[in-house]
């Protein structure tokens, strides 16, 4: 889809400039969408996504920016009765995840029926997919860092977007974030910390949560970081009730 612009080449060396590869590797979430968007959650036909379920069960886990889908695949067998969906902006990546799930369903009859993927811009269309308090877990694993200050508004965790995540999360639901970029880790943590509808999980809660170890081991990005022995910065928060003062 992306057309080469020769300005992405380094003027001196004539070699591709790395940062433009980075820019092209990730879609710009600000640009207008060119994929179908459901008008409202009731319009999403889940029977297509989960043909072996009754069509009434609602999705409870969402993996935002799911990439190649490693997390979904791991969670599928861990929570076989829970429906989960990955949201991914890149067309090709979404197609890959679809194929991957289909393959797993074929080779493992009866399994992986509870995971699926949609191509969408999660920063704009979360309310089009989920009702209020529908989700019990949301994952944001190794999101694009958008280093420059002026691009911070492209970050998938921000004070304003947290309002929407709080809306789709049930009270008690958990938001999992992790990154290998320290600055982004601090940013995500401070956004969550400053939000009145989220509260950090305690050490004990984190320890007893079997999902936590998947954050670093299940996804492609997580594995890459682990291979390179990189540090990771998680921030895991619970959706809490609005206080009466507020």
């Amino acid at each position: 889809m992306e057309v080469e612009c020769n300005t992405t080449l380094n003027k001196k060396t004539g070699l591709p400039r790395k940062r433009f590869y980075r820019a092209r590797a990730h879609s710009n979430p600000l640009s207008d969408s060119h994929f179908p968007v459901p008008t409202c959650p009731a319009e999403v036909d889940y029977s297509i996504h989960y043909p072996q379920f009754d069509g009434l069960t609602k999705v409870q886990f969402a993996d935002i920016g799911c990439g190649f889908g490693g997390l979904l695949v791991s969670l599928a067998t861990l929570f076989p009765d829970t429906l989960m969906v990955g949201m991914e902006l890149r067309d090709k990546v979404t197609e890959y995840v679809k194929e991957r799930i289909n393959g797993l369903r074929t080779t493992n009859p009866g399994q992986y029926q509870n995971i699926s993927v949609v191509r969408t811009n999660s920063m704009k269309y979360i309310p089009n997919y989920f009702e209020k308090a529908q989700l019990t877990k949301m994952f944001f694993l190794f999101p694009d860092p958008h280093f420059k200050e002026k691009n911070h508004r492209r970050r998938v965790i921000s004070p304003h977007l947290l309002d929407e995540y709080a809306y789709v999360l049930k009270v008690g639901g958990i938001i999992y974030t992790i990154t290998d970029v320290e600055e982004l880790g601090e940013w995500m943590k401070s956004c969550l910390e400053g939000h009145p509808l989220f509260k950090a999980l305690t050490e004990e809660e984190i320890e007893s949560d079997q999902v936590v170890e998947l954050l670093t081991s299940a996804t492609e990005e997580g594995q890459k970081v682990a291979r390179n022995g990189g540090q990771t910065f998680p921030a895991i928060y619970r959706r809490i009730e609005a206080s009466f003062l507020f």
Partner: protein
Amino acid sequence: MEEINMEEGDQTREMGVAPALIALDPTHQYVSVSVGSDLRVFNLREGCGVSLVDPTGGCMHKDAVRAIRFSGNGKLFVSAGDDKLVKVWSTESWHCIATVTSEKRVSAVAIDKGGRYVCYADKFGVVYALDTECFDGTNASLNKKAVPLLAHYCSIITSLEFSPDGKFILSADRDFKIRVTVFPKNPLDGAHEIQSFCLGHTEFVSCLAFVCNVDFPQGNLVSGSGDSTVRLWDFTTGSLLDTCDVGSKAGLSQSNGKDAEVSPAVTDLCPNFDGSLVAVAIQNLSGILLLSCNLSFRKLSIAKVVSIPGETCIPSSLGAALSEPMLWMIMGASSLRVSDSASLARVRVVSNFSGVTEQEATVVDDSDIPGGQPLLQKLQGSLSVGEEAISAAAEAVKTALRNLLIKKQYSTERREHRKCGRNDKKIKK
């Protein structure tokens, strides 16, 4: 910032034509209009024009005004727009009491029920709250800080509205969304609790209004959209109660041969004082459509089309005071093209804007308009607006509405071009 400016640059060119706006204060004492950067106010009680002054030394609007609004108690008036200035006026003196500079151009304004917080939305979908209690009254400074309240991710907010009980702030955008947010006790900490989303429109949402009556003092929400419908909502749950397809109303879509297939956008809504009627302005419709609104049966139905005898008048904005069964409309637009008709506007009034009386809603002749000739002179910019100017204004309004409302679809080629352009910019940095 380059990238942002590039994006804005496009908008400047395409959105240069701004529709004229009209607003009434709740007691029906003042009619206020904006045409381009010009603000004009008429005092109906005293029968004379009002001059607006800024003793704080702030400047008047330099670019198109995009939103004007009286507070619910009538004490404040706010104007804001493309020059990024948000000006707060006291309606007692018509002095500007504060001018705040927004980071981006402003697309909508609203004032909370208590009349304390002025809220405005900028072109990037961020809504800010401004505490008028921190104005010192003598020298309003330009750097009064407004705090971000909420945001629609990179979408233009087209309308902001408070629920009648003041507990919720509603924001509508170009991505078909209406968000209902709890308006907190201390809005300066942000409004984080979303009550609901009203989803159902299939095009941009252009306008919001509340319809209330004695049985339903909390009212229901009505919204108008580019999908040519007006919808009725239970805004606390986000459920859609009724949809009225105003575009399919015979005669509307066909009124203009060329645009026949395009369903005309709803551009403004105005409920009447007892909640029985909603006036609807529709792109390309000369006149207005009246919907009757039955809150008990949760129904909207087309009551009638009020057409304007003898001239083309496509209202760019509607207004009414809740104390009077009278609908005000304005047709006009600012234009970047320098022409004599640029600042001219046409003001018309519909009397019997009421669902209970047996009398018909009718367009009032200029000779019978409240405020008479002085009002026309003041608000229109001229006593009589010539036929040529009227049709020029009608054209400008059409362009303005089209440009304002229709979502741009870039061809793939053009998008790639823009991307290259942006990278160019980055390299220079």
